[in-house]
């Protein structure tokens, strides 16, 4: 329900008998009041959409939206959000319903600052504040879909003294996004991580052991609706020596729930793992090797995999299957280091699944 007090009147009645055009910036609604008898003829979408038309800029086609009539006030709610800092044109044309009426044109401009800055960074992974110098990727999660074309321009990696770290990430045109545009994957340039490769030899690792850094997503980045972020997000982390060890699934601690419950199965890894892969590449199998359905979540700074089954556990044998593609923060897989040294025949060990059995009572 809308009250007069929240309506910012940016257009006034031009004469006493003319309709009043208002634009409610908070609600993004355009209204025409004081329609008088003309209102009786505007009780359907078609007639209403002829009488009240809203245009973006110089467009000659009116915007889609919903019309509502309350008393002698007709309101227009656009189908899609208005764009920030743009000019709009409102045309009230009652000629079809009121002889002698003259079209009234009014213009307004939306605010430059977003009215509904709703999108924000929800998390940056890894969530741990200590990462190895040869970390391979970071994930930035947004609450809503982002514009893919300029977001990378608003992301910076700086060192303790605020100096930007140059050429840290692999350069891609628009970055690696998921389909919804809510997860951006930043790849540290593997050329600077792999020993023996040109960039590694000339520039060295992007992150220096002992240093602390900030990954900054500034609020100038815009979401898919063209609105800026709610605020700047800063992820601080410090860097330790390179990690060149395999994640060892056999060292994982498994906390086994009781049979006949839907209590969580909790698996603690010996070190932080890649957040997205950890969530996706671990599964529970029953004694026939069939996957157990349920919901998995990664917690505790990407060291804990927590799984709640859809139906109660049964007593008996189960197993945890870890796909060979699981990686720690530095891209090391359970059966293959990121920098696996090739065997004399030039081949690298294939990544293969790891399986750990457990029994429920």
């Amino acid at each position: 329900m809308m009250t007069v007090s929240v309506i910012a009147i940016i257009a006034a009645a031009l004469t006493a008998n003319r309709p009043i055009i208002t634009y409610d910036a908070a609600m993004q609604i355009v209204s025409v009041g004081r329609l008088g008898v003309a209102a009786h003829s505007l009780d359907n979408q078609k007639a209403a959409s002829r009488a009240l038309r809203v245009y973006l800029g110089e467009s000659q086609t009116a915007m889609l939206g919903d019309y509502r009539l309350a008393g002698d006030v007709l309101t227009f709610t656009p189908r899609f959000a208005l764009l920030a800092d743009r000019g709009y044109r409102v045309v009230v044309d009652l000629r079809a319903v009121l002889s002698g009426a003259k079209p009234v044109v009014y213009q307004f401009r939306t605010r430059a600052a977003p009215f509904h800055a709703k999108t924000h960074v929800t998390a940056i992974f890894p969530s741990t504040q200590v990462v190895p110098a040869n970390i391979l990727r970071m994930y930035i999660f947004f609450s809503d879909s982002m514009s893919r074309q300029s977001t990378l321009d608003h992301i910076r990696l700086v060192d303790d003294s605020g100096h930007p770290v140059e050429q840290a990430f692999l350069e891609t045109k628009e970055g690696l996004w998921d389909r919804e545009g809510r997860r951006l994957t930043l790849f540290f340039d593997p050329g600077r991580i792999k020993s023996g490769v040109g960039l590694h030899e000339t520039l060295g690792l992007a992150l220096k052991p002992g240093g602390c850094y900030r990954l900054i997503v500034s609020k100038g980045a815009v979401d898919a609706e063209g609105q800026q972020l709610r605020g700047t997000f800063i992820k601080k982390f410090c860097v330790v020596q390179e990690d060149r060890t395999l994640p060892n699934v056999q060292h994982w601690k498994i906390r086994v729930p009781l049979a006949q419950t839907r209590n969580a199965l909790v698996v603690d890894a010996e070190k932080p793992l890649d957040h997205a892969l950890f969530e996706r590449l671990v599964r529970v199998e029953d004694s026939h090797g069939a996957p157990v359905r349920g919901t998995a979540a990664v917690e505790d700074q990407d060291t804990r995999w927590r799984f709640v089954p859809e139906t109660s556990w049964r007593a008996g044998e189960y197993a945890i299957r870890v796909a060979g593609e699981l990686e720690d923060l530095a891209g090391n897989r359970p059966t293959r280091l990121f920098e696996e040294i090739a065997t004399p025949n030039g081949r690298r060990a294939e990544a293969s699944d790891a399986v750990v059995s457990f029994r429920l009572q």
Partner: protein
Amino acid sequence: MRLQLLSFPVLISTLAAALTMALTSNAAFTVGPVKAQSMSKLTFAPDGTLFIGDSIGARIFAVDLDDRTPVNDPGKLNVSDLERKIGGMLGVDARDVLIHDMAVNPVSKNIYLTASRGRRNFSLEWQLPNDVANASVLLRVAPNGDIEEVRLDSVKYSVTDVSNPANEAVEVDWKKTKARVDAISDMAFADGKLFVTGLSNEEFASTMRIYSFPFNKEDSSTSLEIYHGSHGKYETDAPVRAFLPIRINGKPSLLASYLCTPLVVFSMDELLDKKHVKGRTIAELGDGSYPLDMVEFHFKNKVYVLIVNSTRGVILVNEDYLSQPLPNITEQIEGTAGIPFEHPRNVGGVLHAGNYGDKKLVFLRRDPFNGDLQLVSREIDLP
């Protein structure tokens, strides 16, 4: 102060029509809002019933828009600057407008388009519109060029589920999309049935579903396998991108086209529920390209199949070649192979095509020089 959502004048006639329908054959139709999560694909039945395939919602809506005033021979259509005009309606600039699919009502010759604001979402060259956004607006372009929205908040419709669609969580790694967007990859209506290709959640994901219409509960679902000549292997995971129900040597068949770009014949009588069927690859139209649309049309007493291709332009197959012994590609090939094809002289830059009366076709095309997205009608001119 009570706010009242306005109704359409059309609602009254719709209700009356619904009552009539309820008394006759089609009790499954109701009046209400069509709540599609994505208007992924469109097609029409010969009587003007519109089918909207919703991949994300895994449903198919049959909508009776009461749009059946016959127009047999529409005049020349030439709508330019389509994105600017539609952009005005969506409240964005032309460069943000994305058209997802097009279908022509065979009765009224009105052209239906689905659209979104999603054009800026493309991040990889292989992505298709449905990979980057969900179409939420249905538009109608009349033969006189007028564009209007087709509101779906109170229409006569019936709906059926797509059983066992591709799981929402499955990612297609090479183009950063979800398999679910191809739960419905193309649709066509023939012989009283709706044919729907797409991806299921089964091991052999590529599937042809057949729905009787009016919808009843059960659909028939057949998994499809093809030999992909340019890849040199048998494949079951890629969806049919465009297909056409067609008679080949007098036999009801489906001519189906895939990414990269095999052309395959399936015999209709083999498409049985819960069976796995191998098609016959009769051509490779050249790798590195998407087939986008397929229509059948007549020209100088000959029948042709027209295939819109993303990189190789408009491809025409003279159906004479389909009545001869068909090739059967079962070994890896380079470039193109199989039945011969040609290209029209007078249309390029095409994204979608549809029949537009007996003689003409209508094309959604982008002009190569000014970048303008247009709807134009043409009589195909063969070399």
